[in-house]
């Protein structure tokens, strides 16, 4: 296996697309726990990983976004947090072999930190730390902290992740006029994350590629760290009782070129993106390979 950071310094990497919306298309019921499928439907999770690998991605993300003790408690699975994280990394590793990097996903805890909510910093650290320990034991190449809206929460997750020694990517979601739900600005966010030791920073989810381009441009001016962009396939729309995302693979492809031109090092997708989107991204990225 190549080293993640040295690969990143010499080429643009392709990250995979959505996991959650793919699981739904394969039968995860509304309100079901996506991470439980690592145990109950491992073959489905691996099918999704393999579809993304076949589409040409260099990095796949584990099915662990919400695998924290607080979120899992809603499904009475809080005691399974460690097991689910470790199992998810193993599924991804089995799918990836040694050709593709495995990045373990860590999403927000799902409660607001004090003083705005009731979650204490120490507890938040313990929750993230449990995920990190399990993911490291599972054999992950890189940790990706994503969809953060509160810079304090991102910092706590980063602190836990950095202790593991593997490279750490950290993304936030900017869906309130170029800021996160909690009001965090892209330039301030990446400066803080750089100081805290993030290896790659960027944006995911929240918006389609068009709005994300503006956010990433601001980040580019603020820091020299490698950047990652993982837009949604637009804003979801309903057709009958089926959710449809409108941004086509071709459009994602056009934006991939623009992301690379402003200096983005990793391009992938979030909600609504499919292996077809990732294949288009990979095709474009290959044309830029140095």
């Amino acid at each position, binding site marked *: 296996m190549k080293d993640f950071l040295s690969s990143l310094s010499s080429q643009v990497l392709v990250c995979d697309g959505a996991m959650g*919306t793919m699981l*739904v298309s394969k039968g*995860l*019921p*509304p*309100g*079901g726990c996506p991470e439980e499928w690592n145990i109950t439907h491992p073959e489905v999770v691996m099918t999704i990983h393999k579809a993304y690998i076949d589409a040409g991605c260099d990095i796949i993300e584990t099915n662990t976004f919400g695998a924290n003790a607080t*979120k899992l408690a*809603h499904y009475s699975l809080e005691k399974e947090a460690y097991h689910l994280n470790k199992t998810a990394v193993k599924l991804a590793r089995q799918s990836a072999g040694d050709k593709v990097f495995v990045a373990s996903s860590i999403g927000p805890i*799902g409660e*607001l930190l004090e*003083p*705005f909510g009731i979650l204490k910093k120490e507890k938040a650290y313990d929750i993230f730390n449990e995920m990190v320990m399990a993911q490291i034991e599972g054999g992950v190449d890189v940790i990706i902290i994503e969809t953060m*809206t509160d810079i304090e929460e991102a910092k706590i997750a980063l602190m836990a992740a950095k202790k593991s020694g593997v490279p750490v990517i950290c993304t936030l979601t900017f*869906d*309130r*006029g170029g*800021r*996160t*739900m*909690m*009001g965090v600005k892209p330039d301030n966010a990446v400066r803080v994350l750089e100081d805290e030791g993030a290896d790659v920073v960027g944006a995911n989810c929240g918006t389609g590629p068009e709005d994300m381009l503006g956010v990433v441009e601001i980040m580019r001016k603020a820091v020299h760290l490698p950047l990652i962009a993982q837009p949604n396939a637009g*804003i*979801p*729309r*309903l057709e009958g*009782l089926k*959710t449809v995302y409108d941004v086509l693979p071709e459009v994602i492809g056009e934006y991939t070129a623009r992301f690379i031109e402003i200096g983005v090092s990793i391009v992938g997708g979030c*909600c*609504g993106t499919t292996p077809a989107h990732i294949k288009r991204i990979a095709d474009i990225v290959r044309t830029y390979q140095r």
Partner: protein
Amino acid sequence: MDNIEALRENLIAGKADEVRKNVEEALSLGLSAQTILNEGLMKAMDVVGKRFKANEIYVPEVLVAARAMHAGMDVLKPLFVKQGVKKIGKIVIGTVSGDLHDIGKNLVAVMMEGAGFEVVDLGVDVSSEKFADAVREEKPTFLGMSALLTTTMLSMPKVIDTLKETGLRDKVKVIIGGAPVSREFAKEIGADGYADDARSAVEIARELM
């Protein structure tokens, strides 16, 4: 009215202790609970809502302002019945079945409360039956439903179906909101209103009154 002016400023700044003192002072100056509510708490929350909608302030600022509003409300509440303070309407609100996200729903609840509505919050992961039961028992003007996920927003038409089946659909106006929800979706499922954000929820409710 200097006192009310100070109350509003303190509420907008999220100073709960100051707001509590301002409300007590206002009462000792002989202002009615209704006046303090309308001219103080509600007007200040209106400013907070407008600034939030304009992306001038964000969730943390709204939450501290809401805390300050509640501090003032706690002083006034014992007087509401005694002085016959009128609420402008009632809303039953909740996050739909299968969805555990409550930040947006809580913001709507706070804004509606700040606009003078009585709010009955059913929490998260609320089933169609629970929504219908609450409409039957609480007899609200509005039913507010929230969803953050594209998968769970599909619970909304189910709630509307349940309301129809139980003969409650014409007893309540349904307003929906949440990140994946749109005006078109609201129209398609037969909701009465769609709210873009917490502040819009208040505007839509006022329009539908």
